[in-house]
């Protein structure tokens, strides 16, 4: 007769294997499509880029310059900067550019969602891109994204949001992580399950805002919420691995943890909000992807609890036979663990290889593979504490 902890251990092992194999086969099926370059756009529709900015004096110049220098017909572009009550020189810097494409508005501080919606209401383009003021794009980015709106049902397109090279180990770690996120998102796009239109840069068909509404102004991760809403209307979100956008990541461990706790809290709340999509009616997104998010989180905490339980109930004499115990424990869990680690290493390799122009040192790839779980442990634990203590939501 199996005990409860044995049943849970077996269930987690099987779930982990299933998820790993699912992504392996998803990759195998789409590996050729994965790295395909975007075609050139057949036409150049009008595009409005909405850039909310709050105290971004350090980065906004580069952000605006990257837009002004991009390879897209000038008369088809409109840049809308919405200064969200900055107290630094953001507004002065934005207004210092003399270009008819650029319009700068100043509003009372109301948060990113509000500033985005203000800009979208002012926008006149057939397509609307949203962009963070601490990000910048490459000259070909707009063209590549526009080219992906090649089907009627495509309502949003996400670019390859990356982190510029740096000497800061934490930033380099995040560079690898972002590549993994991009690679996974690309795979998810093959089962119509892109769950986010990233804040640093995303492009939408204007009509999507008329059909699903504007950004949720009170959401912790409004860029995810709008993507889920688009999915709930059965519209398509495509993902590019070649339309480059660079953004600034958190520079300290504390800032990174705060960001991830916010993502996790907002993310889970959003999935809960859209739990009605857990149904075959919403294809793979409803049948697999949304449940996967809840199950992964539950599995994470279960593994943690089982590890703590095993540690607490470890017999006292175990410390005399540590080496022997390793041998005695070779079995299902070691096999699953080794398999998952090997697949993670291979997928990280594929992700890094997908971006040949991004040079990453091997030590940061190794750091990512082994440090990522500790980061997850950190932010998931903080997430749980914050949720249980009903901690204040922080942007």
């Amino acid at each position, binding site marked *: 007769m199996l005990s409860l902890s044995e049943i849970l251990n*077996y269930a987690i*092992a*099987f779930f982990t*294997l*299933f*998820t790993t*194999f*699912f992504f*392996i*086969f*998803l990759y195998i*099926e789409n590996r050729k499509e994965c790295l395909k370059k975007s075609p050139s756009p057949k036409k150049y529709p009008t595009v409005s880029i909405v850039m909310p900015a709050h105290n971004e004096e350090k980065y906004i110049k580069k952000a605006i310059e990257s837009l002004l220098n991009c390879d897209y017909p000038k008369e088809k572009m409109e840049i809308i900067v919405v200064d969200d009550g900055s107290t630094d020189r953001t507004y002065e810097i934005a207004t210092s550019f003399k270009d008819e494409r650029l319009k700068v508005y100043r509003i009372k501080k109301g948060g990113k969602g509000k500033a985005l919606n203000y800009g979208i209401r002012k926008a006149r383009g057939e397509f609307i891109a949203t962009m963070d003021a601490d990000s910048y794009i490459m000259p070909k980015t707009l063209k590549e994204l526009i080219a992906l709106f090649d089907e009627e*049902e495509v309502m949003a397109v996400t670019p390859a949001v990356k982190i510029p090279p740096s000497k800061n180990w934490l930033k380099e770690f995040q560079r690898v992580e972002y590549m993994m996120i991009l690679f996974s998102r690309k795979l998810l796009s093959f*089962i*119509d399950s892109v769950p986010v239109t990233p804040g640093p840069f995303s492009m939408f068909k204007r009509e999507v805002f008329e059909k699903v509404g504007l950004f949720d102004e009170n959401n912790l991760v409004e860029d995810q919420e709008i993507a889920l809403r688009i999915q709930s209307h*059965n*519209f*398509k979100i495509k993902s590019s691995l070649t339309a480059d956008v660079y953004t600034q990541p958190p520079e300290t461990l504390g800032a990174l943890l705060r960001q991830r706790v916010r993502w996790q809290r907002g993310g889970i709340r959003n999935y809960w909000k859209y739990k009605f999509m857990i149904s*075959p*009616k*919403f*294809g*793979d*997104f*409803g*049948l*697999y992807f949304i449940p996967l998010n809840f199950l992964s989180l539950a599995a994470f905490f279960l593994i943690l609890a089982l590890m703590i339980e095993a540690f607490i109930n*470890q*017999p*006292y*004499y*175990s410390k*005399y*036979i540590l080496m*022997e*115990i390793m*041998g*005695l*424990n*070779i*079995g*299902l*869990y070691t*096999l*699953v663990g080794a*398999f998952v680690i090997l697949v993670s290493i291979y997928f990280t390799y594929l992700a890094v290889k997908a971006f040949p122009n991004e040079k990453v040192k091997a030590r940061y790839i190794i750091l990512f593979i082994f440090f990522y779980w500790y980061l997850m442990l950190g932010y998931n634990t903080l997430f749980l504490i914050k949720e249980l203590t009903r901690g204040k939501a922080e942007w």
Partner: protein
Amino acid sequence: MVRKISWHLYGLAFIFSLAVFIAGIMVGKATENSAMEGLRKETEEISSQIAKVQLLLLTDENQNFCAFYEEELKKVEEKVESIGYQLSYLEDVKGVYDNELKREYFAVEAQAYFLAERISRLCGKDYLLVINFYTNKNCEECKKLGEEVLKAREQAGVPVKLYSFDGEIGSSIAEGFKSKFNITTYPSLVVEGSVYEGYRSSGEIVRIFREEYDNKNKS
């Protein structure tokens, strides 16, 4: 957009997961079996190692060989303890039981006990001989006492040689020891022939060890 369900991917993922899952369970079982086989082999080896020393002791019981005897005894006890812990780990954590192997192990433990007793007498050694009688049948106190004894051995600051016997698996050796010390309840601790019944904390056991050690040295 018309939503699709990738049944073929779920099917493939399920089949491959099941295959690895079953392989993992089989590897686990094979590991356990091979561990048991390894322990059985080691037990046999130690048994013959002890027999060699005993034979030497019988042939020429001479204090000149004490250094050799002690060296051999140390090696034997390290191995016996390690096998004991591994057997307990397989039982307590992995739920793998092999009473036949346990009985063989108890026989070796008994050999080691008598060897230690004899070397102690011959070479004038002051270590304490301690036997812990336990059972795995509904005895929470036995588990706790086992842990406390190990802690006490680390804390007591006196040399202790520890032997443990499960009194309820039909081992004739364990029965012999039970009868020798008149053991009727579990857990019971025998320290240099004195019986201490029931659970005791490591602090109490440390006190017992020190008292018995002083008594032994006085006599």
